[in-house]
């Protein structure tokens, strides 16, 4: 599948600029927000940076009324958080596709609630588009996943290098989200708990429920990519601006596939650093 950049609202001049940056042309020049360490390691891993790519979506994320005393997922808000992140990711992938990239490394997926409007948040995905020196990965397949789009990964350049050394390749950034409303305690219940150390079962249940939903959705995205596993997973609780009882649980990681049968790396040498950090 190829991405039609025109359908995603990327201005024409951006496309022309990106097309001009295709490697092998006279004007080839890369931009990247990798650190020097990351830049050199990504090159040593056999990839060349092509350009800084980003996607953005400013989204109106309003409120959804939840029942005061009921544990429930706020499906409308979950959907909105998913959709906005997908928009940012897809636009970033489209930029990378125009550059002719095999993948995007060191992706940062961020949300910033804006001061200039109520309930407005900017979702951004920023990364460095890279192209492999070899057309095929060591397992004989291409570098792109089964979607045909460039692979994406939120691993740092260092982790990316280590992953490839160990015989794995990233397939895609996978995520799962669940915005959950945690029920308030009934008055009689909070009254009976006064002076006691007890578990509050409906709170435990709610947090379990929400995290499990987020993780299983991430897992489903990994399965769709035929991944062997997901590495570098972060499981975040993001309160955003919905008050104390409504929280987003967000699981994000990089789905990987094996490149070879053994995954041994040379035993690291021990080193005593002469710096205090």
């Amino acid at each position, binding site marked *: 599948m190829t991405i039609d950049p025109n359908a995603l*609202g*990327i*201005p024409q*001049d*951006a496309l022309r*600029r990106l097309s001009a*940056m295709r490697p092998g042309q006279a*004007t080839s*020049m*890369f*931009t*990247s*927000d*990798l*650190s*020097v*360490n990351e*830049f*050199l*390691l990504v*090159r*040593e891993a056999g990839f060349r*940076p092509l350009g*800084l790519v*980003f996607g*953005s*979506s*400013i*989204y*109106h*994320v*309003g409120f959804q009324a939840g029942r005061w005393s009921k544990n429930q997922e706020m499906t*409308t*808000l979950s*959907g*909105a958080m998913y*959709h*906005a992140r997908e*928009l940012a990711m897809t*636009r970033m992938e489209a930029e990378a596709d125009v550059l002719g990239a095999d993948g995007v490394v060191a992706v940062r997926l961020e949300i910033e609630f*804006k*001061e*200039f*409007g*109520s*309930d*407005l948040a*900017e979702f951004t995905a*920023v990364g460095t588009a890279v192209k492999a020196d070899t057309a095929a990965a060591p397992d004989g397949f291409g570098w792109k996943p089964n979607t045909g789009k460039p692979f994406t990964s939120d691993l740092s350049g260092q982790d990316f*290098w280590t992953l490839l050394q160990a015989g794995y390749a990233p397939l895609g950034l996978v995520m799962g989200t669940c915005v959950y409303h945690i029920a308030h305690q009934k008055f009689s219940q909070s009254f009976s708990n006064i002076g006691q150390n007890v578990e509050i079962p409906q709170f435990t249940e709610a947090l379990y429920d929400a995290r499990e939903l987020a993780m299983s959705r991430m897992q489903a995205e990994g399965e769709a990519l035929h991944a062997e596993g997901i590495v570098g997973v972060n499981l975040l609780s993001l309160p955003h601006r919905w008050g104390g009882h409504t929280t987003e649980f967000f699981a994000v990681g990089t789905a990987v596939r094996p490149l070879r049968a053994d995954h041994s*790396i*040379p*035993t*690291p*040498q*021990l*080193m*005593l*650093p002469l*710096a205090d950090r």
Partner: protein
Amino acid sequence: MTAGSGLPQIALDRIARASASGVRTSLLSVPSAVSAHAVGISPIGEVMGCIVQHIGWQGWAGCGYWGNGFGQVRSTSFGSYQPYVDAVRHGYDTALARLSDEARMLGADGIIDVRITVTHLGRDNHEFVALGSAVRLGDERSGIGNIPKALPVPFLTELPGADVAKLMLHGWMPTSIVYGIALAIRHDDWMTYSQTRSWTNQEVSGFTELTSNVRRQSRRIVTAQAGQKGAGGVLITTSTMRVWEQEPSDGHRDHLAEARMFGTGVVQFPRPGVPKPPRTLNFLPLR
């Protein structure tokens, strides 16, 4: 030496004294200085460039709405705030040029670990300061590859000594500090209005377009500038975005977005006779 440099007498005196006495100062940290030394870079003096500038006229060419047939789309116009963007660029450019002048008078090849700060002094006055450590290249300078015996323009980088050393060991050289600043405005039309007040959660396409446009614009400027300076790539070090609203008249609201991107241009150079650096080793730090 002093012609056209625009440096005040006190700066000229300091530089003259430093270059006569040969005292060597720098702003480098110990790891930064040691690793720079490993590739033959030696610090010769700390240098500064500074300008206080009054930015009183931002430019105004409307919000791009009226000439657009009152249509909803593509109402951003980049031309309108050019006086402001030019003024800010002038601030950075002058600070960096004065920094380079001090370094050149010391006989430096380049300036590393450059720190740029902008302080708002009130009443539309802004101070732009660039601080850095002027350095000379050692063996690297004496004719290896494409590096001439003396650099006509000092190379500039925000990267600390360790990063410069790593780049040089792998055949890359920092060339210059490049940056892009872009500012755009967008009128809040009925579409923006309805999207932000809707009962359903949805994308506010006008604002997305505004911020995406300024980011792309600043990336385009960075790339073009680096290309002009002969760099083969840019390592972006900072990237910021600011969005705010203004209400020029009753019931008329616009949003503005400003993106700034700073980075170091790098260029690859052949290193005949220099052995390739060893492949990265696996270490486990004990701490």
